[in-house]
């Protein structure tokens, strides 16, 4: 079972599990922030020992500052890469997926936005959505697409929040698109312009 307890009843949201060693010729891990702990937990299992020589970890610190690079580096996998952000890791991720042979196992761990973007990249490379193992760890901050301007705001913790692209005040609708890897943001004061309720920290 997932180690993160989610509020119920968002049927478009993926259900996350716990990473477990897969059987394959190569293993690609992408994690952010506390997601590193899920990767370390996997490698703590006896059957994962022989995976290390065929494993590649791409890691970026969380938006909340959480940086577990040292623990991951200490695992001694074949390839470890620390990226400053997911966006900066994307070219590398795309290359690794494009070069992959049959039998590649893909694992994503950390925030919901990170996992969804890994799944999107994997699908773009021809893997089915279900081929990516996912484990949620750390922040419940959401990645939100503004339904009006289509811009995505990363690491949304407040509801409502201000769209980082068009500046509208958005509430976060409990509706998740795997294709866009984001929740939907909808203008909260559309009917009464200027009447924006105080923001609360809804996603910690």
């Amino acid at each position, binding site marked *: 079972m997932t180690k993160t307890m989610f509020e119920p009843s968002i049927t*478009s949201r993926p259900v996350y599990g716990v990473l477990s060693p897969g059987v394959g010729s190569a293993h690609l891990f992408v994690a952010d922030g506390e997601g590193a702990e899920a990767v370390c937990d996997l490698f703590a299992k006896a059957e994962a020992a022989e995976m290390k020589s065929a494993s590649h970890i791409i890691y970026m610190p969380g938006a909340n500052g959480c940086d577990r690079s040292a623990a991951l580096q200490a695992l001694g996998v074949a390839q470890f890469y620390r990226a400053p952000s997911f966006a900066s890791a994307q070219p590398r991720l795309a290359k690794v997926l494009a070069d992959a042979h049959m039998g590649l196992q893909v694992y994503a761990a950390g925030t919901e936005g990170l996992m969804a973007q890994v799944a999107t990249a994997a699908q773009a490379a021809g893997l089915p959505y279900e081929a990516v193992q996912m484990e949620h760890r750390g922040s419940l901050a959401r990645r939100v697409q503004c*339904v*009006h301007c289509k811009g995505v705001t990363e690491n949304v913790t407040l509801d409502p929040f201000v769209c980082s692209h068009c500046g509208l005040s958005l509430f976060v609708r*409990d*509706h998740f*698109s795997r294709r866009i890897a984001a929740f*939907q943001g909808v*203008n909260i004061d*559309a009917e009464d*312009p200027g009447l924006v309720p105080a923001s609360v920290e809804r996603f910690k």
Partner: protein
Amino acid sequence: MSLDFNDETFRGDYTFKNSAKAIKRFPFPFPEDSYMYSVNMEPHVPGPVGSIFEHMFDVDEHYVAEMRDRAQVLADDPLRCQSLPHMELAGWDLLELIMESKARDYPHWFELHKDGNNWHWINKPLQIEQRFTFMDASTLPYGPLEYITRQTQGDFTLQDQRDDDLWIEAGMVTTQADWSLDFDIGMSFKQWHAPVPLAGQMGIFDRALKFLLKLQHGAPVRRFNWTMTVDPLLDTSPENYPKWGPSKTTMTPETIGHRQHLRVELQTLHRLPRSNAIVFPIRCYLIRFEELVTVPKWARRLHRVVRDIPDELATYKGFLRNKPLMLDYLAQFDDGQPTSLGFAPD
């Protein structure tokens, strides 16, 4: 524009209106004095002459003006029509279904001539004449889905069927009740219905999906849905919500009869022959309250439905704010008399 079609607008000065004939054939969606969700599917078989069910795809007096409005929506936002690459075959299936239906049902307006795969399509109301090769998208100005739905009233979504599920993977959506094709495209049946309150717990989507997976070619089905819209605005999209949202706050007892519209969707579902996809046309019919209350039974019944609807549903349908104003207006037409079962006027 010919006498068959209204010269009217669904934006700006909002000159849309229904003729007496259009009011008489309006698809009033409430068979009894209360409303709750149900799947309520029935076979989409031809209905009485002159009714909206007479033909497979109803073409009415609003046709030309609605197509003009669609072209404007697409010019403003091309993301309203999308098709994932594997859905082109389903687009051809739909093009064939619509062209054959319209040429058969309205031969004075539409003609389809076939010579093998060389097709010749004539659409007189829109003054379109097109020779093209069936199944060769390079011979049309748009992909097959976009081409034919720029000439057909109603929104359209195409669902691929795999893994015992339906996946919304193409669509033309410009007359929607506040949902975004651009956001929902690629989702499974239950994913795209996630924002609908109550119905999931009621098992509505389980039953509907089970039913639809077995839908047979040649046996289309239909149901109604409804909501409320201020002013005859077809494009009540979430994308443009900041533009149309404020209109809800400007209603008064003097204007509600003229500006408040009941918005009814005739939803049909058809299995397509080559792709095995399902096409879901969602046809929007609008009627202003002051037009609707000219039918006494409908006026009484709408008053009772709006009065008794749970607030959660009124919120989802976006009219909780104006519910008291609606009730004040409609109450004057409800003398408490019983109404007969069924949709039809007494």
